[in-house]
């Protein structure tokens, strides 16, 4: 059976991609942030996962408000990136996957999740920045990616508890897939930040650290927050925690944390990174 070998959480902010393009990872502002990644890259290199399930949100590249899915999953053999309007470089196509992804879709619908199924979508920085971080030099095309997009931009948004349950359903689907594929799961975005309004700029480092603790030991405690709670505590875009919860849901049982980093601010956010392995 296919196996989830680990879970990774990471920020996906565009400034990271821009910093990598400019080669300024070692400057005082960035070095503590980028220091988080070599151990994760090393682990990926040792483990050589076949497939990555990436939970991300689309910030208005593919999914405009005209047709905006609550949950969407890609079942394509390739995904293109494109101009997002404000200067992040477009990266080469991402390799997709069409067998496990359809199996996940079948299992999700069977288990009362009804995602939008996508055979041709562009993926934005929410997905491409994490891939670029894990595989410097954009050396990611050997990895087959299954994008899972969660609405974090327009209310109503799926609840934290629902995102966690979605992850659990995907985790069970992976476990029931015949094959010996090694699967890694990415929870991207977060942590606390607010881009909009007079309250723009709020960061809650204490809460972010608590989230990282709870993600390991008691993720269900985090599912008791509502999205309104997250806005209040962690800022309007603090709801991106939902993608971390979906990742954690996939891991089903207990996990151990083998690596963690937290730097705030990175751009306007608290930037957390974790590598979790199943126990």
């Amino acid at each position, binding site marked *: 059976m296919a196996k989830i070998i680990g879970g990774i959480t990471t920020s996906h902010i565009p*400034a990271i991609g821009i910093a990598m393009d400019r080669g300024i990872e070692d400057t005082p502002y960035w070095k503590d942030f980028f220091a988080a990644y070599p151990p994760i890259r090393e682990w990926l290199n040792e483990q050589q996962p076949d497939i990555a399930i990436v939970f991300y949100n689309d*910030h*208005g*590249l593919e999914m*405009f*408000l*005209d047709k905006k899915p609550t949950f969407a999953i890609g079942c394509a053999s390739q995904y293109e990136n*494109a*101009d*997002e*309007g*404000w*200067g992040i470089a477009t990266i080469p196509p991402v390799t997709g996957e069409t067998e496990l992804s359809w199996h996940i879709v079948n299992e999700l619908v069977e288990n009362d999740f009804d995602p939008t199924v996508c055979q041709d979508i562009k993926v934005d920085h929410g997905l491409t920045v994490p891939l670029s971080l894990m595989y410097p030099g954009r050396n990611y095309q050997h990895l087959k990616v299954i994008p899972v997009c969660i609405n974090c*931009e*327009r*209310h*109503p948004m799926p609840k934290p508890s629902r995102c966690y349950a979605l992850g659990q359903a995907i985790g069970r689907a992976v476990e029931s897939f015949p094959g010996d594929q090694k699967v890694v799961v990415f929870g991207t975005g977060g942590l606390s930040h*607010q*881009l*909009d*309004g*007079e*309250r*723009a*700029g*709020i*960061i*809650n*480092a204490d809460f972010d650290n608590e989230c990282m603790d709870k993600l390991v030991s008691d993720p269900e405690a985090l599912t008791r927050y*509502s999205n*309104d*709670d997250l*806005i*209040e505590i962690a800022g*309007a875009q603090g709801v991106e925690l939902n993608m971390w919860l979906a990742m954690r849901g996939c891991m089903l049982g207990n996990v151990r944390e083998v690596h963690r980093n937290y*730097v*705030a*601010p990175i*751009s*306007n956010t*608290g930037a957390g990174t974790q590598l979790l392995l199943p126990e």
Partner: protein
Amino acid sequence: MTEKKETWGTIKFDGPMATKGYALNKMCYSFNGAEGREEFKKDEAAYCDKFGLTPEQKEAILKRDILALQREGGSIYYLAKFAGVLGLNVQDVGGLQTGRTTEEFKAYLDSQGRGKSNG
């Protein structure tokens, strides 16, 4: 119905706001493409009219009034694309919304993280 919280300084981008701001957000969505950005720069008012913006939305675009654009239904994700056309980053936009200079806004961010222990 669950109890809905309101958070100070935050306009929740929900169904009514998405309805109010649809044309504005659609215009900003067009800034993903270089063609849209160039056409806007050539004649901003005409580009607003092409997308059917309300007079309030159009005025807020011409005045670069980010908070007014949110009150008129603009989503921050699409307004970020407008900010990109203007050559502004998210710290610049944070400053504009909070009455700070960009440097003051960055210092505010820092005071909640790395700069915390420095008082």
